[in-house]
């Protein structure tokens, strides 16, 4: 077995960065831990930070009038939590709640943006990696809207949150 394995957790966002860039970014990281059931952020709040999950799972939810909170996706180790900080209006699109105990690296968005402005090569790699996550989530949403597991035919289109 020669090629790089997928995982282990924590590698996905960093995979696109050189060792030097990774070192610079990690100098801004803060280790944080959240117990299960913690609301990390709410929809519409100011998005001024992001996290890379090291262990545990986080549920992303959206408030649907009349139905309350509806989980649209859960993400785990290695995933980027939060991309709304990257572009205006810099408000969370979804809310996030830990499912179980979560350990993560927390990054202050303003500090990371300053670093990206200072080192544009790093900036490009990081933004590309974040855009990839956004693309992933968009593809996943699109696939869910197609009703991934339903039989063909009109009865296959069910209500999707």
């Amino acid at each position, binding site marked *: 077995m020669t*090629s790089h*394995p*997928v995982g282990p957790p924590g590698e996905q966002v960093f995979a696109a960065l050189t060792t030097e860039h990774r070192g610079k970014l990690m100098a801004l990281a803060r280790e944080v831990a959240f117990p299960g059931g913690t609301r990390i952020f709410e929809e519409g709040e100011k998005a001024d930070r992001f996290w890379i999950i090291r262990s545990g799972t986080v549920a992303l939810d959206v408030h649907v009038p009349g139905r309350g909170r509806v989980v649209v996706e*859960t*993400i785990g180790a290695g995933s980027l939590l939060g991309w709304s900080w990257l572009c205006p209006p810099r408000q969370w699109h979804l809310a996030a709640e830990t499912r179980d105990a979560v350990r993560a690296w927390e990054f202050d968005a303003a500090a990371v943006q300053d670093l990206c402005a200072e080192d544009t090569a790093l900036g490009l790699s990081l933004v590309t990696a974040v855009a990839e996550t956004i693309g992933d989530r968009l593809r996943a949403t699109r*696939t869910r809207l*197609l009703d*991934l597991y339903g039989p063909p035919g009109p009865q296959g289109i069910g209500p*999707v949150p």
Partner: protein
Amino acid sequence: MTLTPLSYRVVDRRDETHDTVTLVLEPASEALKPFAPGQFAMLYAFGVGEIPVSVSRLADGHRLTHTVRAVGAVSRALCGLRTGGWVGVRGPFGTAWDSAAAHGNDLLVIAGGIGLAPLRPLVDAVLAEPQAFGRLNVLAGARTPDDLLYGDEFPAWGKPFGAVTVDRPSGGWTGRVGVVTTLLREARFTPSDTVAFVCGPEVMMRATARALIHQGVRPDRIRVSLERNMRCATGHCGHCQLGPLLLCRDGPVVGYDQAEPLLTVREL
């Protein structure tokens, strides 16, 4: 392979979900040849019609196990059968999950909805000789928690690495939410040394295959199981044609390198 159905009796039935039933069938006298994982039988509900259904567990003696989801007239009739009821069965038909080609490799078994049924005999076979393979990952997706199949067996499959995700959580579901491809982030495999077996609706198989290729799994090492309407199941009537393939004979299991160009054209 027999062209006329043999009589089988339902000796066990189990409700898997609100619309899916597992039937265990025993031959009345003459039995069909043994099936391989991924192959299918034509099940005839007397007076209603005949449909293709994969084996969902390999034969215990001459018995056959099938898991059927009720979507229309014939599948509903099969799901409505009680112990002691009769079914006509032809088979075995089609290509199999060629697990031997995966020897020494990491394995991804990825299922969407009822697609877990044809994959279950493959998982059984791999677990029976784990030393022949690398790491086994069983990833399953379903619409809702109530649609998940074989919930009681999954913990055993999960020991190498297994994960389940649903599109729409309900009823206090505390597991994963999201499409099955999101589980790939945590699966343990080396893309260049991996063989993937994928079964589910076509849109799910396409999304999964694309994600796998993006991660470095070769298209010819991704096996998908394709469904088309079947009539004769013997390569004569043409009902199951997909481009150059007659899926009752050349499928249902085919390599994604072969399937991809056929699945992405709008009409054939």
